[in-house]
């Protein structure tokens, strides 16, 4: 019973750490040929190369124009914008700082000089940022699991005695189910709390 809980706990740690690592690399825009996208139409000479899923303005201050992806390569994409073909980088030096769940996918090769519709952050060296994120998630989950572990100190001694003797309803689940269920629920709680905490770091109020 205890072994089961430890195994579940370990698996959840691993899963959440991997998920955090996968989610952290957000300064990349995943495009398919034929996709409609908003891109900066400031010309091939212009260095800003802003790409976004949403309307708004480029990092250089010009408005974003509708574009269509013609072909997509490794780290670059050829877009048709204003009737002309232009090659854009799909890995941004700068990215929209609206958070990991934001779907705007805005990237640029230039920091915003004009007041753009979004706030920008420099794409962090993604492995370090994701390590930090994974550590944050692990700590957050551990705090929640701790609440469960403290609770279980009071629970465990009562199960064979008092709890076994009281009358139970017909739908009472088997005792072994509570451990894994609570382990999972505390892990989800930890992850949820971390997501909220992370949003708080990005827009301090």
């Amino acid at each position, binding site marked *: 019973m205890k072994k089961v809980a430890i195994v579940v706990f370990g698996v959840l740690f691993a899963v959440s750490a991997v998920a955090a690592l996968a989610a952290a690399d957000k300064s990349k825009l995943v495009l398919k040929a034929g996709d409609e996208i908003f891109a900066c139409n400031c010309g091939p000479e212009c260095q800003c190369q802003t790409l976004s899923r949403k309307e708004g303005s480029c990092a250089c201050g010009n408005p974003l124009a509708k574009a269509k992806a013609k072909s997509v390569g490794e780290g670059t994409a050829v877009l048709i914008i204003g009737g002309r073909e232009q090659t854009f980088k799909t890995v941004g030096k700068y990215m929209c700082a609206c958070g990991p769940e934001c779907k705007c996918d805005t990237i640029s090769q230039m920091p915003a000089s004009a007041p753009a519709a979004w706030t920008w952050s420099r794409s962090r060296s993604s492995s370090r940022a994701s390590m930090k994120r994974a550590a944050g998630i692990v700590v957050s989950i551990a705090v929640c699991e701790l609440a469960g572990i403290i609770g279980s100190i009071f629970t465990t001694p009562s199960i064979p005695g008092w709890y076994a003797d009281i009358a139970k309803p017909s739908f009472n689940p088997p005792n072994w189910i509570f451990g894994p269920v609570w382990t*999972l629920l505390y892990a989800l*709680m930890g992850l949820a709390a971390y997501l909220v905490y992370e949003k708080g770091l990005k827009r301090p109020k």
Partner: protein
Amino acid sequence: VKKALAVFAAQLLLNTLWSIVFFRAHMILGAAVVIVLLWALILATILLFSRISRAAAYLLVPYILWVTFATVLNISLYVLNR
């Protein structure tokens, strides 16, 4: 965000408190009161979280469903062992 995390912390404390009231103090009725309060605080947490992060709110849905079930279980244990 601070308020949301404060309510979250409160429900986590209440969660641990339930174990103490039910299993340590053997107070089934007292535990039922705690679990109803806990349920309300989880709902409040979900509502506050949903304004900040949708994913975070969804992650708590299994939790409130389980606590709903646990509340029913707790109250029926009280009725059966009065």
